[in-house]
């Protein structure tokens, strides 16, 4: 019967539930988008930049998510760099089973058959690198430990290089020149896709011992030592061992801070965590405001309804309706109104999240708890907002009410 009332006055009903609608839409949309971003940032962003259960031993952070003062930059630059010897020393002292790789990188130009690919990230690494980065191979193979030991001029290229530089020709076995020296392509990494619109396939990997190391890893110095463990707990344990080893090697006193950096995907996430924390803190406030406004609107609509239907209430009372019958009738109407608003809000919120996902690189993942919350809030606002008008209706004197227009 309550739904019949709502359908009878569609426009008025719509305006009366707009507050609840907006509040619930906010709730669903923001939660979905934040959840989606969380999933994206953790699985895609952080793990792609650093790796799953992975930490990197570096001179200074490479992923900086907040503002850093000039002073701090300078202090970081003054730190000693990570040498081959440092890295070797540390990895020998990790007892937790791990996969490791030396790593350096810089931008170089690759040439093939008269064509040039400029500004390509050239990585110098070891065999373990492909495991750590979870790079599947779509053609050929990765290089072997022997090739690393020998400093062989072999190359594994990213999907974009295979596509653009070789243009349909099978790259395996072909010769790519880097800084004047030819390298043989032995493998192609499977397509990785985009991260925030930037291609992840514009790179090539060579053994860090190959000749071009003069350009990317001069003076036996590394950008980082990558270490991957089997689980988060094991990673933390390995990190502890690495830190102890480095501190010993650098002869740091107990009070002194590290003069190196251990970077994890959690660090990469810290900036996002701040933003999402702020969003999620602001959200209840926004939702609350909308719902309070919505509740007030519903209360006023119900007060008007009680006023307009005074005669009807008199009739019902004359026929035997008790106070609680009238009270529950109007509270149910009010709750139904609010619930319809919440349902529309849920639909709108889901729609909004879907639109965001379709049109921007940002993903959205619907959180069931937010939908349940929307329903609960819908009912609650309706019951609370309707309580006063309902009690006014229940307390009407039937004789006076029957005389109303």
């Amino acid at each position, binding site marked *: 019967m309550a739904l*019949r*009332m709502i359908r*009878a006055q569609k426009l008025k009903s719509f305006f009366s539930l707009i507050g609840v609608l907006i509040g619930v839409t906010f709730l669903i949309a923001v939660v979905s988008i934040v959840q989606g971003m969380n999933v994206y940032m953790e699985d895609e962003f952080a793990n792609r930049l650093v790796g799953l259960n992975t930490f990197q031993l570096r001179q200074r952070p490479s992923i900086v998510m907040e503002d850093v003062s000039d002073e701090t930059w300078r202090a970081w630059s003054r730190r000693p760099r990570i040498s081959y010897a440092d890295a070797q020393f540390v990895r020998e002292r990790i007892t937790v089973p791990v996969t490791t790789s030396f790593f350096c990188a810089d931008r170089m130009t690759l040439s093939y058959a008269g064509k040039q690919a400029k500004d390509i990230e050239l990585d110098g690494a070891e065999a373990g690198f492909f495991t750590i980065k979870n790079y599947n191979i779509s053609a050929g193979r990765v290089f072997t430990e022997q090739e690393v030991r020998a400093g062989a001029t072999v190359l594994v290229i990213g999907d974009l290089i295979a596509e653009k530089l070789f243009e349909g020709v099978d790259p395996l076995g072909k010769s790519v020149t880097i800084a004047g020296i030819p390298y043989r392509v032995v493998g192609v990494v499977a397509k990785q896709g985009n991260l925030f619109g930037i291609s992840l396939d514009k790179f090539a990997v060579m053994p860090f011992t190959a000749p071009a190391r003069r350009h990317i890893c001069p003076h036996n110095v590394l950008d980082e030592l990558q270490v991957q463990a089997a689980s988060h707990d094991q990673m933390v344990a390995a990190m502890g061992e690495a830190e102890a080893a480095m501190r010993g090697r650098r002869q740091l006193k107990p009070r002194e801070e590290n003069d190196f950096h251990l970077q994890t995907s959690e660090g990469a996430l810290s900036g996002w965590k701040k933003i999402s924390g702020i969003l999620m803190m602001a959200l209840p406030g926004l939702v609350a405001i909308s719902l309070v406004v919505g509740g007030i609107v519903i209360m006023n609509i119900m007060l008007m309804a009680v006023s307009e239907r005074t*005669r*009807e209430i*008199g*009739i*019902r*009372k*004359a*026929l*035997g*309706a*008790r*106070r*609680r*019958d009238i009270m529950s009738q109007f509270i149910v109407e009010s709750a139904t109104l609010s619930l319809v608003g919440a349902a529309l809000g849920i639909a709108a919120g889901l729609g909004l999240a879907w639109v965001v996902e379709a049109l921007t690189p940002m993903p959205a993942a619907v959180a069931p708890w937010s939908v349940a919350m929307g329903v609960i809030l819908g009912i609650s606002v309706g019951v609370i907002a309707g309580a006063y008008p309902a009690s006014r209706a229940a307390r009407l004197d*039937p*004789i006076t009410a*029957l005389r109303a227009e």
Partner: protein
Amino acid sequence: MNPELIRIRDLERRYVMGGEVIHALRGVSLSIRRNEYVAIMGPSGSGKSTMMNVLGCLDTPDAGEYWLNGQEVSRLTDDALARVRNKEIGFVFQTFNLLPRATALHNVELPLIYAGLAARERRDRAMAALERVGLGNRMDHRPNELSGGQRQRVAIARALVNQPSILLADEPTGNLDSTTSADIMQVFGELHALGQTVIMVTHEPDIAAFAERVVVLRDGRVESDRLSRDSAA
């Protein structure tokens, strides 16, 4: 010998209106037996509206007793009065007082809803009541799709659906033309013949003549209480 259905002793009712005290009922005593057909008449200001409200348990007196079907109802709480209204009183109003946005069937179901009946039984009883007043084929019509006479019949079906002790009608033909009025009075007559107790408040002597007993109120007291000349005792 029909037992007493209604016994009223020294009923008093006062209002304060605009700073003045109005004595609507100044000590009314009355007895009505089962299956009587009573008309209550009186000029404006005689207290007949107040009398009807008290009889219908819409209002409680300030003094006196009101025994209805063996129960003293003059001091009951609002909720208890609502119960009594639902069980014992069938109202028929001058302006019909049907819910405008509900069907005839739903209107007739209303007292049964407040009596707590299950949906299936409600429907069956309401349908039967509408058939008895000849509106079985108009169940799904809304009041604005019905004529005045049909609306009053729906109201009568609603009044009877819970099998009340008294049918209490307030100027039942006030909004109807003479032909339809005659129809409605015919219905009342039939109900009376079937055993229903009918109490009718009216200011029209022609309508009061259909009853077998006429009580005339003046200035809050009973002025006369006679059997109607035309009807059998």
